[in-house]
């Protein structure tokens, strides 16, 4: 450990090396390759982010004169009961949707890995719904999860279960949304898991089998560790996506023609949108957005720290 610290270059040395790199044509070529992305990042991501950070300390409304309000927007959001409601809803939704998404995607990928040649067709079929616009998913949610006449409750009825009123009962709104959104977009993760499963070396299974490992043990001790980087990736991406959920829920509950949203369906991103584009409080909305950014950053960092214990990168560790 001490040796590693001693050999690690300091920031000054690293900066000097970075500048020295420009003496090489390869460095210039690398930056030329990166330039379209760098341009896009600066203009369309970093620039607006910095602007929104500045705006979050103002009462910017686009139309009227802007004043500096200091930390007032952050102070307001701390006391805003809708922020707490929206955050709670968003966390619950994410906690429900991410595990459901991962389990279903992994299950489907495991099945696909066994079907051989036909896997390609099924892979395409599973991926197709991913291309459905969020607005369409919101409308479909209202139809499929309709408490009295929806496909889901009709199906549950055949096996003797009376389904809840998913779209109107405040206790069932979030589970319904989580189920719909996580299952509908499962195709992308199925493709990732399938690629990971196919990549697990056969000899590991053969060795485990020779040692008398059951199929569950082989899955737990061979498959899961070997595909853990993919699971980690899917969890991180879907957690971020879950915390930013907007279009499907907005269409189902907060659209002009479906104004039936309640405290149970108010997601954080929807609240940001309302503050900005319905009430023109861009300063406040920017502060809300930065809080969400900080939360996502913290959760992602936590996931990365936790992943060090559970994720196995082949070739990185002995």
């Amino acid at each position, binding site marked *: 450990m001490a040796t590693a610290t001693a050999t690690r270059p300091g920031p000054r040395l690293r900066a000097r090396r970075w500048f020295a790199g420009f003496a090489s*044509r390869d460095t*210039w*070529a*690398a930056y*030329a*390759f*990166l*330039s*379209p992305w*760098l*341009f*896009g990042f600066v*203009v369309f991501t970093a620039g607006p982010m910095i602007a929104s950070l500045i705006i979050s300390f103002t009462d910017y*409304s*686009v*139309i*009227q004169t802007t004043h500096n309000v200091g930390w007032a927007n952050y102070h307001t959001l701390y006391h805003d009961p809708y922020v707490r409601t929206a955050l709670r809803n968003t966390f619950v939704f994410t906690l429900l949707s991410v595990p459901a998404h991962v389990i279903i995607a992994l299950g489907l990928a495991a099945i696909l890995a066994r079907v051989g040649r036909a896997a390609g067709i099924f892979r395409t079929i599973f991926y197709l719904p991913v291309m459905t616009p969020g607005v369409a998913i919101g409308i479909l949610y*209202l*139809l499929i999860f*309709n*408490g*009295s*006449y*929806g496909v889901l409750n009709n199906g549950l009825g055949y096996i003797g279960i009376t389904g809840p*009123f998913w*779209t*109107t*009962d*405040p206790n069932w709104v979030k589970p319904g949304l989580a189920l719909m959104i996580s299952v509908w977009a499962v195709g992308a993760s199925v493709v990732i898991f399938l690629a990971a499963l196919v990549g697990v070396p056969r000899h590991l299974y053969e060795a485990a089998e020779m040692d008398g490992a059951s199929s569950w043990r082989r899955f737990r001790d061979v498959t899961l560790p070997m595909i853990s980087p993919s699971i980690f990736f899917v969890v991180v991406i879907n957690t971020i996506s879950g915390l930013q959920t907007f279009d499907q829920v907005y269409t189902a509950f907060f659209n002009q023609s479906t*104004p*039936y*949203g*309640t*405290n*149970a369906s108010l997601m954080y991103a929807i609240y940001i949108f*309302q503050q900005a*584009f*319905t*009430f*023109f409080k861009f300063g406040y909305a920017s502060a809300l957005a930065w809080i969400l950014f900080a939360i996502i950053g913290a959760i992602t960092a936590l996931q990365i720290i936790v992943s060090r214990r559970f994720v196995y990168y082949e070739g990185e560790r002995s």
Partner: protein
Amino acid sequence: MQGWRRSLAFASLIAALGVLAFAATLASAHSTTKKDGTLNIMGFGKGDDVAESRAAIATAALNGTTVNRPSGGFNDQQFLAAVASGNPPDLVYLDRQKVGTYAAKGAFLPLTSCISSQKINTKQYRIPAMNEITYKGKIYGIPEFYDVRTILVDNNVLDMAGVKLSGLDTSNWPKLLATAKKLVKFDNGKVTRIGFDPKIPEFFPLWAKANGVDILSKDGLHPHLNDPRAVAALAYAVSLVNAQGGWDKFKSFRDTWDFFGSNNEIAADQVGAFPMEQWYYNVLAGSSPKVHITALQFRNKKRQPINYETGSAWAIPKGSKNPTAACTWMKAMTSTSTWLAAAKNRASIRKAKNQPYTGISTGNAVADKAIYAQTYSSINPYFDEAVKKVLDVQRFSFNIPASPASAEFKQAWNDAITRVLAGQQTPKQALDQAQQESIAAIKAATK
């Protein structure tokens, strides 16, 4: 290999610069189109025959000015982005209820000089529509359509249930509740027919008005959401829903209606009656012209007819580079002769397709009179009577006044009602909360 890589890197750099140049060209093209010879309109993309025939007349009135009408309706996000970039449109077409808020924030120009210079006769427009676009005594818009609400009744359902039309009397709440209970139908615990849909949260202002209270003061600054009469109105409207299975069953059944199709809820006898805007008679006339319907006027507790009106308007944003052309366009689009020409055109189109025509309801009272006198021809006794009722109820209109926080105000009462319907709060609790939120929003908007 190295040469190949260098070429690719160079191509990437060129691509990045290309994107930059393209963006710059777009921005410059956008600003150069803002010359006097162009009228940029937001919120009025390509529309139906009524929109297009009037647009043709208005374009002709501009004498060679190029009219730029990007597709899509008015979008706050798009409008604010245009304002922020320093390129606001020259003219916008939007919901009248939004005009007051934008006017209060200084985003729209008062039309005082436009009206006087173009000699626009504002007396031809309906007073409630003008109230919606008048803020602090100044006119900020020109009204276009005029939505009227009557009670749409499915006669078949009443006949099947043995209920008379007199039972659907909104001035007699116990009687209406009893009628709704007679009309509603259940099968295996599911609602299969709604008796009377009060249409809340959307039409809550109508129920409050029926009980004698305007939910917002005339100056748009003082909400009356927790007035006992408003609370009682909400409690009653919710009791109608609860008596017909409760919100869960009620809404889940309503969500299955084929609203714009030939097997709509009237054709399929899925509802006894509900208050609805007048444009829906036109939909029914096209999708299911053989339905047996009746239109009833919504009556207040004193048995007087009332109508909650809404609609659209034209307004000129601050920073408009062609306000003169915008003013000419607004005048031409909403004039009596233009509306009449559009109505005649629609009547002939419908006739050619052998489809019924129920007329057009505009914000111009003079135009409406001419339209129905000159273009309407009998469809059948049901639709003819409905059209008569729609025309008659226009006299009894009220509006939600222009307010500096109209969006927050609407959101507050809408959310309050959904909380009550979901069983999360009582009407009093919900409307008390909405009242506090509205007061705070208006106070912040007038600071």
